[in-house]
């Protein structure tokens, strides 16, 4: 039977694109219709539609599909293992005594926002490169400091992302593909360097982390050898974390894994007690750990010719930047960083907020964080309040991603894998932007965290990437 004759004898189920009452009329007639939440592709911009069309050329589309399949396979198959902790100067490629790494795409000292300037000056004091914040500002502007994005040194950094040579880093190795990723230790919440705070209490804590916490974790991992982070991540999601803003379960799992080895280290009972108290002081201890896991997996998927998969989303507080697999190396596509909207600590107002900042959007790039909100009903307040909305965000992200990660699943969605592999073509086609849930830092230096909420990347970063990539490969 021909397809047309099959249609005659089947129950009608229409997909309706455009005028909505056509759907209503069909439903009135006892047939099925699904109305699309359709928007003009590329916001209706002809050059973007032309670029999308170019990429749909059959031969090219096939190459892109193959490249994306490979990229997503590498993200999913990556098995990032925690293999150690050490000071940045000892492990991070290209690190020097006068290097300061920061979050997001490249930025100069002059253009940095308040939170990042606060973190940079605090780090300079912490490193002994300046005696106080005032002097640190002069040093930062002197040209003697090398500023570079964390991402360009195999690192990721929370919020301002500021990383200096003597800070202790997670060392995360990809068991499948061999690459290594690094990230700082959590300073826990609120008034901390990565949020732009830099007073004495901040520096004192950093010193303790350098002298006690870091070395203890380093020694513990020497005994432990390796810890399978992906396994812990999967469990944490089942326990109600989305592992960007909620890390309650993940932190328990991580410290549970580390504890026996911490106990075996040569530190005093008091010092161990300090470490456990510190971990217990907030649930964010494992926050950076998952970021390093995500970075480790995504780096394995970067640099695949023809691939339209996003391998980095990061913000420096001024610009939001993305990198795409098919544009190898450090090609950034940027747009202005956006406001983060969400609940705030008592005493602060939306106008106190700095713009979106941090490498933590690496979690959404991997498929957790905002993408896994359905796994974390306890913090639905971030996305407007209802569990249903949280589930909606997680399912909506499938519109712009290529695969579901079977290794990291969400119970409430019948154990579907998290939406993985953001395709810039889908973002431009649908106008759906990746959802990011993140903390809010005060816009001024020296204050710290003032809230948390959701935000989106600027569409133009994806549009620029699409145009450039389509020119490169077609």
């Amino acid at each position: 039977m021909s397809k047309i004759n099959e249609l005659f004898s089947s129950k009608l189920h229409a997909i309706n694109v455009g005028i909505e009452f056509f759907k209503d009329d069909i439903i009135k007639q006892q047939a099925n219709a699904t109305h699309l939440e359709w928007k003009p592709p590329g916001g209706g911009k002809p050059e973007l539609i032309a670029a999308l069309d170019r990429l749909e050329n059959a031969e090219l589309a096939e190459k892109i599909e193959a490249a994306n399949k490979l990229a997503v396979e590498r993200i999913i198959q990556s098995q990032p293992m925690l293999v150690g902790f050490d000071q940045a100067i000892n492990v991070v490629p290209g690190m020097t005594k006068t290097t300061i790494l920061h979050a997001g795409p490249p930025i100069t000292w002059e253009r940095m926002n308040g939170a990042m300037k606060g973190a940079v000056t605090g780090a300079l004091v912490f490193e002994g490169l300046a005696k106080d914040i005032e002097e640190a500002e002069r040093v930062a502007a002197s040209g003697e400091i090398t500023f570079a994005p964390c991402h360009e040194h195999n690192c990721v950094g929370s919020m301002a992302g500021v990383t200096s040579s003597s800070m202790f880093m997670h060392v995360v190795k990809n068991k499948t593909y061999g690459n290594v990723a690094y990230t700082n230790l959590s300073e826990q919440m609120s008034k901390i360097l990565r949020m732009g705070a830099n007073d004495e209490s901040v520096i004192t804590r950093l010193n303790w982390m350098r002298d006690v916490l870091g070395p203890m974790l380093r020694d513990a991992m020497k005994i432990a050898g390796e810890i399978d982070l992906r396994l812990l991540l999967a469990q944490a999601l089942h326990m109600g974390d989305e592992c960007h803003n909620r890390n309650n379960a993940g932190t328990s799992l991580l410290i549970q894994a580390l504890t026996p080895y911490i106990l075996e280290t040569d530190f005093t009972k008091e010092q161990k007690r300090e470490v456990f108290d510190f971990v217990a002081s907030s649930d964010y201890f494992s926050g950076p750990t998952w970021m390093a896991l995500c970075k480790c997996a995504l780096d394995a998927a970067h640099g695949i010719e023809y691939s339209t998969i996003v391998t980095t989303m990061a913000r420096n507080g001024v610009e939001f930047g993305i990198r795409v697999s098919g544009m190898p190396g450090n090609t950034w596509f940027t747009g202005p960083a956006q406001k983060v909207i969400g609940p705030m600590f008592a005493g602060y107002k939306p106008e106190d907020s700095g713009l979106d900042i941090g490498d933590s959007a690496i979690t959404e790039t991997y498929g957790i964080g905002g993408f896994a909100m359905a796994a974390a009903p306890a913090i639905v307040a971030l996305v407007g309040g209802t569990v249903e909305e949280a589930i909606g965000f997680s399912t909506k992200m499938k519109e712009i991603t290529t695969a579901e990660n079977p290794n990291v699943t969400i119970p409430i969605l019948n154990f579907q894998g998290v939406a993985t592999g953001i395709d810039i073509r889908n973002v431009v086609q649908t106008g759906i932007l990746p959802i990011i849930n993140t903390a809010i830092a005060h816009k001024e230096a020296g204050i710290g965290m003032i809230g948390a909420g959701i935000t989106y990347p600027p569409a133009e970063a994806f549009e620029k990437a699409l145009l450039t990539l389509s020119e490169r490969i077609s």
Partner: protein
Amino acid sequence: MSIKVVIKKSTYFDSVSLMSLSTKANQLPGVEQAVIAMGTEMNKEVLRNVGLLTAEVEEAKSSDLMIVVKAETEELCDKALAGIEELFSKKGETKGTSEIKYATIDSAAKSIPEANLAIISVNGAFAAREARKALENDLHVMLFSDNVSIEDEIALKKYAHEKGLLMMGPDCGTAIIGNVALCFGNAVRKGNIGIVAASGTGSQEVSVRIHDFGGGITQLIGTGGRDLSEQVGGIMMLDGIKALDEDEATKVIVLISKPPAPSVEEKVLAQVKQCKKPVVVYFIGGKEEAVAAAGGHFAKTSKEAALKAVVLAGANEDELNKRALNWPLIEEVRAKLTPEQKYIRGLFCGGTLCDEAMYSAMETFEDVYSNIQKNPDYKLKNLHESKAHTFLDMGDDDFTNGKPHPMIDPSLRIARFLQEAKDPSVGVIVMDFILGFGSHEDPVGVMLPAILEAKQLAEKEGRHLEILGYVMGTDLDTPKFEDQVNKLMAAGVTIASSSTNAGLLAREFVVKGA
């Protein structure tokens, strides 16, 4: 100033939920400052910073919930605390299972395997792309959008033909698939007559007439107005005929179009010749010989097409009410019109209805003008000014550019009607009122005040203004057919029983005695 503290022992809430509650609590009336948080050291620090650290707070444990409110008076504090209690107890309403929303045809088609057709009505600039995506996903397409290039139409139809899919449109407003009317359509009985039509209102009219004669429809395939042009070559009409010929439920096939390109007409008639089933051909202004030579059944009017179809499908012609022209009525109207009242003005929503009425006038008169005239000599130069006999298709792009179709928004037609009504050379104004899916909810109702106004005006000037209305719809349609007709009759409007009769009556009303 008053500060009140409530400590709830061993009560856990996630910090983010509490931040959200705090934000809401701070918006409660009279609240100076409100903090709702777990009793951790960090949170106590925050309270100290804002000057709210009381002795009670100091003693709170990290597993205790702290509610601290600062307000002008004690009373306001209590009110705020009550308000906060309410915030805690108020849960958002859940809608149960949420409807999954899709943004693209690709994702919808992949997630809904039973989906079999896409209706596309987005802006013409994006429509072809969406239609291609639908075809790629093996969906049949109803492309409602206009302003799609002919190149795109040809490419889409060729692709659909290769894949064996229906590609209805572009600029296709009507279809009935599996007894479901799509976009603009009427509620017609299920039956054994299949229609392939390159004209929207034309096919609506034939389906309505078939229903009126007691027959019914299997499928109504709309091909879009350009399908029978030289360039497109009738790709969809040919595929539609084949499919209906194969369809067991279909006994008779009806083809409807405005005049096709000659070469395409030949192709279509060659296909008709191949058909196992009787085919009625209603090509407006078409010739009988070619159709007869192909073994088809020629219909000169939409009514004749419907009549022939129901008879071929098994109805007994003698038992049908053919709704013949009412000659006494015609004589009566002729007598009322002055010698100056010579002209017909047709104001139509339906393109084919306009065409049919115009062709019937052209059989008797020469000076028949229209915005859709094929003959350039009689194509209306100034759209805003009627000339002699004028028939306007107000659903044509000339009028709808940037505005909704008059089937949905009647304002343009109302204004034009009042303009025509003032013209002393006008004998009859003829209008269609289209019911059914997609149409205005009360097409007669919106026109009535203007009709009454015009009638009064003519009366004042001592002339009779004949208004002829045709309500296109079935007894199954909404709004109710009968109500619409009654409203018109009550306003002194003469009712035609079909599109064909509307054209004939309008013509005969203004024929001046020899």
